[in-house]
């Protein structure tokens, strides 16, 4: 029986009372050694007999129909087993996160260059790849628009207005009105998208790289026109997701179709180029921000408009203004979003959808306001922290934004900051920048089973670990609650036959699935307390011992058979009582070359408050990763689209520049002690995306402070900075 718990009211901080003492501890990941020694079996490595190999076929036009496939030309090639083209079950693109149904399908119709339109299967990977590359297709091609700035078809979101921003701009003592452009990004996870499909009768097992298993089961079943019960997904290890594996993707559907037809397991792995072709990218954005402020910098209002793009019939538009709604005050607010329907490859969620690029614009605009009003950028932010949510009026559940800004400023040495172009060593200018971080926090339904045996505990949930540390933290929560060292807790993840979890996405995974494990353990504790003859509150569990008052017993002596509890967390009324978000502050110091516009980040520090930190090591690692993405957004990363064909031409890691080691200085990450009582029963908040939110703006604001060049086009490649520098000549 599943115990369901709704987060209707604030819960006691039980994890502060328990006795094992491992919650929050910087324990290493239990599966870490498997990963670094090659023993963790990722999707493509599952041991399956008699495997055939499929390679996806790439559409080489932007829009149109497949007229003819010269199958005969490759059928007779050695090893070739099957050519699946124009199968109407082939999905156009990966599903958006949490869709739970198949994305658009039409095996013959092409809507972006690079669309996987079929799969060739052979005995070996090399044979399949050769045949897939040689396959000749004839198309009837149609005109396709690929330029978001000149799209004839655009969709506007509903008008969203509070007060009157035009009036506020009119009476403002200081104002900012600027446009910001950010490049498209691709989540190039280290493990490319990969799947092995194995059929037994009507049932398919997919070894996949999937972030949201319970939704992916539904999506795959729907794409294949089969019942959900007939799909099992195994996704124990994922080599990075970053949103790109939220929805079922082309390789999984292709593997399942091919394997069914062939009566033999089939593996399909995307090449790196195919990842750039077909995986949902982060849209490019054009954002216009208007800020109206009083003489002392206090905001009267904010307007945040943006244009993003996606394919027709995709339900996702980058929520660019997500953090703008609640980060700063000001009674007059306006939001507009325009989605251009074009035939670039489709867009979707990429790490911190919304904040990652939206906050770069907002936090740059705030820096511009600081300059305009003569108020220090840290002080300006402090002055504009609203009492309550500026649009809903809700209080904040736990918000240490001010503390983060102040703590960060003092440990970074912010008081050493000088005016623009004041610090120059040789031909290098040096400067500092700041930006706030905010990523709203969510609680989603999530279920887990915990089994207490005489020798330890087992946690089972279809939750995933996308490299973030789920194995570590769920083991810690169970160990803490049950009084066991983490080594005695086995965590089993990523199997759709386990209880359904929230999955990994939107920074909701750890707190949601952690809460379910917590609740199941709590139920087990109650049973133990019963056996001990005391109330749950009086029970202490540590190192395999149960204690009530002066009675102490060994856990193993208390349990004659396994205790099994299944618990589910559901969001409830607390989210209507308070608004929950993680907050933080980024500080960066950069050097800018006066002649070439090269930028080097010299130091960077982030102070964050994200509720209870479950494992300081894995949390820190998330923040490092986020800040590095911030450096990429600021300085290096751009998916370049061909202006005629729309596809990404920077299709490998030599051309798509995420930060290399030399781009990343020592990153200091600090967590402030916080509990978010409204968030969930473990008082934790999401942390996977907080570190990226705002980070890029700290870097580009530092560029301004260094050399006086305001960055409004991201990334700030040397030519972008150079253009500004030349204005000083």
């Amino acid at each position, binding site marked *: 029986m599943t115990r369901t718990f709704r987060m209707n009211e604030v819960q006691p901080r039980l994890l502060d009372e328990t006795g094992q003492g491992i919650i929050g501890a910087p324990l290493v990941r239990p599966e870490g050694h498997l990963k670094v020694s090659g023993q963790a079996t990722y999707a493509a490595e599952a041991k399956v007999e008699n495997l055939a190999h499929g390679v996806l076929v790439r559409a080489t036009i932007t829009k149109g129909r497949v007229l003819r496939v010269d199958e005969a030309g490759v059928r007779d090639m050695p090893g070739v087993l099957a050519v699946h083209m124009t199968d109407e079950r082939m999905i156009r693109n990966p599903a958006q996160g949490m869709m739970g149904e198949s994305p658009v399908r039409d095996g013959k119709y092409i809507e972006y260059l690079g669309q996987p339109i079929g799969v060739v299967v052979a005995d070996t990977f090399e044979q399949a790849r050769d045949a897939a590359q040689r396959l000749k297709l004839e198309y009837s091609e149609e005109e396709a628009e690929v330029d978001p700035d000149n799209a004839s078809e655009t969709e506007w979101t509903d008008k969203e207005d509070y007060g009157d921003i035009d009036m506020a701009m009119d009476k403002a003592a200081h104002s900012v009105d600027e446009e910001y452009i950010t490049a498209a990004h691709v989540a190039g996870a280290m493990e490319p998208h990969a799947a092995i499909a194995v059929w037994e009768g009507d049932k398919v097992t997919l070894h996949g790289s999937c972030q949201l298993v319970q939704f992916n089961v539904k999506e795959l079943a729907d794409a294949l026109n089969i019942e959900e019960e007939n799909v099992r997904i195994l996704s124990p290890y994922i080599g990075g997701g970053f949103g790109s594996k939220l929805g079922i993707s082309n390789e999984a559907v292709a593997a399942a179709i091919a394997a069914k037809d062939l009566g033999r397991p089939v593996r399909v792995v995307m090449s790196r180029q195919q990842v750039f072709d077909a995986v949902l990218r982060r849209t490019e954005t054009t954002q216009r921000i208007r800020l109206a402020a009083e003489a002392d910098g206090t905001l009267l209002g904010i307007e945040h408009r943006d244009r993003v793009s996606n394919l027709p019939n995709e339900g996702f538009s980058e929520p660019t203004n997500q953090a703008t709604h609640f980060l700063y005050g000001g009674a007059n607010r306006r939001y507009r979003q325009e989605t251009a329907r074009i035939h670039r490859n489709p867009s979707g969620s990429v790490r911190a959808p919304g904040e990652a690029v939206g906050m770069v614009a907002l936090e740059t605009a705030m820096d511009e306001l600081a300059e305009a009003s003569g108020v220090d950028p840290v002080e300006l932010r402090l002055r504009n922290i609203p009492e309550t949510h500026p649009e809903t009026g809700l209080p904040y559940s736990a918000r240490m934004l001010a503390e983060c800004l102040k703590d960060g400023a003092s440990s970074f040495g912010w008081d050493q900051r000088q005016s623009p172009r004041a610090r120059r*060593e*040789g031909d290098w200018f040096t400067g500092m920048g700041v930006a706030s971080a905010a990523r709203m926090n969510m609680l989603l339904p999530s279920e887990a089973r915990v089994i207490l045996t005489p020798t330890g505990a087992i946690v089972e949930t279809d939750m995933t670990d996308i490299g973030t540390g789920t194995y570590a933290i769920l083991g810690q929560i169970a160990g803490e609650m049950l009084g066991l060292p983490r080594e005695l807790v086995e965590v089993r993840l990523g199997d759709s036959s386990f209880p359904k979890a929230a999955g990994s996405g939107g920074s909701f995974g750890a707190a949601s699935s952690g809460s379910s494990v917590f609740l199941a353990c709590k139920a087990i504790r109650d049973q133990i307390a019963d056996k001990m003859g005391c109330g749950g509150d009086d029970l202490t569990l540590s190192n395999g011992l149960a204690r009530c008052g002066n009675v102490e017993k060994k856990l193993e002596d208390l349990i004659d058979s396994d205790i099994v509890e299944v618990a589910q967390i559901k969001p409830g009324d607390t989210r209507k009582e308070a608004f929950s978000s993680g907050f933080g502050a980024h500080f960066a110091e950069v050097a800018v070359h006066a002649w070439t516009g090269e930028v080097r980040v010299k130091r960077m520090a982030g102070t964050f408050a994200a509720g209870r930190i479950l494992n300081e090591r894995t949390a820190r690692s998330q923040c490092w990763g986020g800040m590095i993405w911030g450096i990429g957004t600021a300085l290096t990363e751009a998916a370049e689209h061909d202006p005629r064909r729309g596809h990404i031409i920077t299709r490998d890691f030599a051309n798509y520049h995420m930060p290399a080691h030399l781009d990343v200085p020592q990153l200091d990450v600090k967590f402030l002690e916080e509990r978010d009582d409204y968030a969930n029963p473990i008082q934790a908040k999401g942390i996977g995306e907080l570190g990226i939110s705002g980070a890029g703006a700290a870097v580009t604001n530092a560029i301004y402070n260094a050399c006086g060049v305001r960055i409004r086009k991201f990334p700030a490649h040397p030519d972008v900075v150079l253009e500004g520098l030349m204005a000083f000549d």
Partner: protein
Amino acid sequence: MRPFDYTRPENLEVASQALTDGATPIAGGTNLIDLMKLQIMTPEHVVDLTRLPGLSDIDGTPDGGMRIGALVSNSVLAGDPTVRRAYPVLARALLAGASGQIRNKATTGGNLLQRTRCPYFYDTAMPCNKREPNSGCSAQGGIARMCAILGTSPECIAAHPSDMAVAMRALDAQVEIRQTSGETRTLPVGDLYLLPGDNPAKEYALEAGEVITAVILPAPVSGARQTYRKVRDRASYAFALVSVAAVVKMDGDTIESAQLAFGGIGAKPWRDTEVEDVLAGEAPSDELFAKAADVLLRDAWTEESNAFKAPLAKRTLISALRDATGLSGETHFDMGDAA
């Protein structure tokens, strides 16, 4: 990748014969194998040069120069004590290229002959005259960020991507080539490369069956300051937007001589002695350097997406010369060159 025969001859005669018969040589394979995977190069017979004797040595030459075997890896060459002391511009250029792992595999000969990084050359959905003669040039009107602005033609605007070759051009290196006859010929490194003209598919002045056996450096210019300045889209592990190899000798307060070569902007590793003539005998100044840059760029032809390369090249040259002549006053702030 298509199926291919693979042989690994133990001597040059056998290798040379196979190459004359149409085989393709492979050394480190760091470029060739990528191209084979994408079916941009589809050799039927690959001849592995890596077991050939005598091509992996670095030796002094009688006139005080250096002979670098074609199979010497980029890592070994960059770390060679003599190179670091006498030809630091070469060591720096090598270390500014690729990554540690790639440099361990990449060879001197293979580096010289690596193919362009124009992204359209690697994208078989797009027309490319270099890959498929007479199909068109997608870089024009496309994303030409990595393409050249000097020495290009209406048929092709690709840049040669090698950093090492830029340094070697500044150093007046010669390439030693074994002909099919078994004889050896040498070629100034600049003459190894052909401009695209109307046949961008033909890139090198090598005949079928010819193998690069070594690169020969003349004795170093004594007392010259050497620097390699590479500007790119991230601090390491990226091809050059613009790079400058400079070997500058001062005579008191004036420039006695300057040997300059450029990467990222030329259809081949670029050198233009008229630029050097502007500098010789003059006192260093930003104005002088700007004048030299204007000479360099007098025939520059840019696309919208790489128009920035002209001002960037100008300012990178000024910066490199400021460093080499001491004007910038900085010797310690050396960030970003050691990948």
